[in-house]
């Protein structure tokens, strides 16, 4: 079911990474993003996997939660793998049939590509979505990008928009599911038929979903108005971000680990 999608969802727990300052996590995320896309050697990948495992433990994320995050992306990872296997033609040919050529080098590269994607998803989940509430996330981005507001970039507003978007993901997922069921009971079929037909079928979901999103946006705006929202000026915070020594150390240690991985590579 769509409402079970955990991509972009927060996982409530009390863990080391949950309590780490979101700004540190955001910076670390950027660092690991770079690391993930630089490395190529299997040893480095192994070490990186070890670091990610350590993060998982520090975030108290259960294998079940991890699986539900990775699972929806596996088809894409597989797709990338297959495409790469068939398109890379360098190296020792293992198998060749008509225009299909499979090489050992190709398999290796393809595997790295697929693994990178999986790492990317896992890193995003552990460092950001699963361990950081959208409001904290937007706080962090607001703080990190605060200097930009000097050149009139509406940093607070953008951060608020992002956190609301994240807040509404589960709501809209449930809504989509409801609309699909309603249309199915009128005879819509989203599972079979040609690709074009399927796309056409989704119009019956998308239009009502758009209409309802506008209605929700409208109601939410009124509700926020009623709660005296007037932008970032003069706002206080229930849980203001506090950078502790622990946070700084966490940042340094994990950055060094990332540098180590790149160095091994």
């Amino acid at each position, binding site marked *: 079911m769509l409402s079970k999608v955990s991509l972009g969802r927060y996982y409530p727990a009390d863990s080391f990474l949950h309590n780490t300052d979101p700004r540190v996590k955001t910076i670390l995320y950027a660092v690991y993003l770079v690391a993930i896309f630089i490395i190529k050697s299997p040893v480095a990948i192994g070490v990186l996997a070890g670091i990610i495992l350590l993060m998982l433990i520090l975030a108290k994320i259960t294998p079940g939660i991890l699986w539900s995050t990775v699972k929806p992306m596996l088809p894409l990872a597989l797709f990338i793998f297959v495409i790469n296997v068939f398109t890379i033609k360098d190296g020792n040919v293992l198998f060749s049939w008509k225009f299909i050529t499979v090489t050992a080098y190709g398999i290796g590269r393809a595997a790295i590509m697929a693994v990178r994607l999986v790492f990317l998803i896992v890193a995003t989940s552990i460092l950001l979505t699963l361990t950081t509430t959208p409001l904290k996330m937007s706080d962090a981005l607001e703080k990190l990008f605060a200097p930009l507001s000097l050149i009139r970039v509406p940093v607070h507003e953008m951060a608020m928009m992002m956190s609301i978007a994240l807040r509404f993901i*589960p709501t809209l997922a449930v809504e989509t599911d409801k609309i699909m069921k309603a249309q199915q009971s009128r005879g819509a079929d989203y599972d079979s038929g040609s690709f074009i037909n399927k796309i056409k079928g989704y119009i019956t979901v998308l*239009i009502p979903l758009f209409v309802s999103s506008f209605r929700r946006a409208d109601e939410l705006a009124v509700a926020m108005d009623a709660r005296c929202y007037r932008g970032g000026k003069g706002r206080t915070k229930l849980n203001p971000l506090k950078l502790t020594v622990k946070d700084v150390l966490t940042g340094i240690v994990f950055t060094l680990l990332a540098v180590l991985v790149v160095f091994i590579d």
Partner: protein
Amino acid sequence: MGNNIVTENPNSIEVKDVVFSYDISDEESDKAPRYALDGISVSIEKGSYTAILGSNGSGKSTLAKIIDILEVPDSGKVVIFGKDAGDDNLFWDIRSNCCCVFQNPDNQIVGTIVEEDVAFGPENLGVPNPELRERVDQALKDVGLYELRHRDTSALSGGQKQKLAIAGALAMQPDILILDEATAMLDPSSRDDFLEIVEKMRAQKGLTLITITHDMTEALRCDKLVIVNKGKVAMEGAPEEIFMSDDLWQYGLKRPVKFNFAFEIAKLTDSKLTKEDLVSDETLTAALTKMLKKPGIKYPEYINHSEDKKEEREIILSVKDLSYTYDGSDVKALDNINLDIRKGEVLGIVGESGCGKTTLISHMNAIFRPVQGDVIVHTKDGDLSCKNKKDTMKIRQNVGLVFQYPEYQLFEETVYKDICYGLKKMGIPKTELSKMAYDAAMKVGLSTDEINSSPFELSGGQKRRAAMAGVLAMNPGILVLDEPASGLDPRGRQEMFAIIKSLRDSGTTIILVSHNMDEAAVNCDRICLIDGGKITAVGTPYELFQKERADELGIQIPRITRFSSLLKNELKNTWPDISFPEIEFNPEKEAQAVVRAVCRAGGADVK
């Protein structure tokens, strides 16, 4: 307009001659703008408990928005406790002292975590820590959500979400709290919970409480009612004054059920009720007892509604040993359900939110394919199993399913096209399309104009009918309706149930999902109670709502039955031998039954 002198009473909310239109005024348009508020004046005292009533689209929500300065009047004056809402310097001061709880819980939650959401309001006001923390914790304790403060807001139930909305309001420490149909989407027990909390807070903090509601019995809890019609105040006064009036229907309203019952007794005994009689249950039962003691009451004719033996009717749909568990959940959403639905009946499926009602009906037309157990649809052309993939379309043609708020599934340019969508999908030949679509629209009472307009231009009630027509067009033998009347005003509800009754009379079997015991009791032939994914009882309303049986099942007795039994106890003091063999759930019919019982007990001339 210089002579709009408002008495600047520091102890009341004064709305004076307010005009407001949502249409952006267009000088070149010949159409006069439609006014949501059309010169409305109302005065609400500090600390009072006021209900604003009116039909859908009467302007009552707009009035609430004007009071919270969420909308600024085109003309007229609003003064809140002596502060002029037109004064820009007082704007935030006024707004921060007035809080709203809206109807849809999902569309007013900003935070992903419970405590973050509660903090949103006071954060906007710039409340510093540690006061902010204290306010949030206190508000959460007040509504009983403190233990859940670190929860994900999307994991809360509907009732909990509305409590969260109150907490969010309380944390702002307002003087005025406005509930804009805040209980409309809740089941009866969460509704009671919600009102209890709000009323307790009002008593503790001296809040001025304004509630907008379609529930007349809920309105009885208030000190004062304001009836809004076409953007003006049509009536105002204490509940007992308002409900004396015979004009309620034209404003889309009805009397609370117990008053309908009382007025019918007054009519049958040729007596008159006074507003003093309506003040409390005690005064009302006393007045009614007095009426019934009068000599010379005519025996009300018993109208037999030609009950045929429903047990002997053929079974049209059977649910067999059905169980279902959602992915990633350990709890069974459905646990071994067995249920037979007979041709031509109205079967009610009743239970609290989250009991498995929707999961059950989703199996009835193979939206969910049975994993354990089966659902069999018996048709003229033989039995269809929901397990069988190739029968799916036939099943969906036979079993029409209208989900809650079906208006949200409309998508075509015109209502006609939308109604035809299902027909086309079912492969109905083009020549028959138009007739079938128009037939369906007729059944729900849509006019030709409405059929050819865009569904998004219709009013809420009409949209719902259009969406229902989209399912009815396929001429299903069985129609499953999930809360078909939710969100409608009392008149709209009554019209909806009239449509359902006419469908039933034309031979459609109806399965009605509801959490409203009053309506289930009146409209259903049989009721199936569900709790925690299990069927706890199936029976006629008469069987289930006997006091002992209802207590044993732990269900709410319909309001009419509760009030009627108060009166019956009173009557037993006068006529110790009186017996009440009939129980009716329609207030008028129940009144007749009571009068008949009194006549039989020797209260009047028995023919």
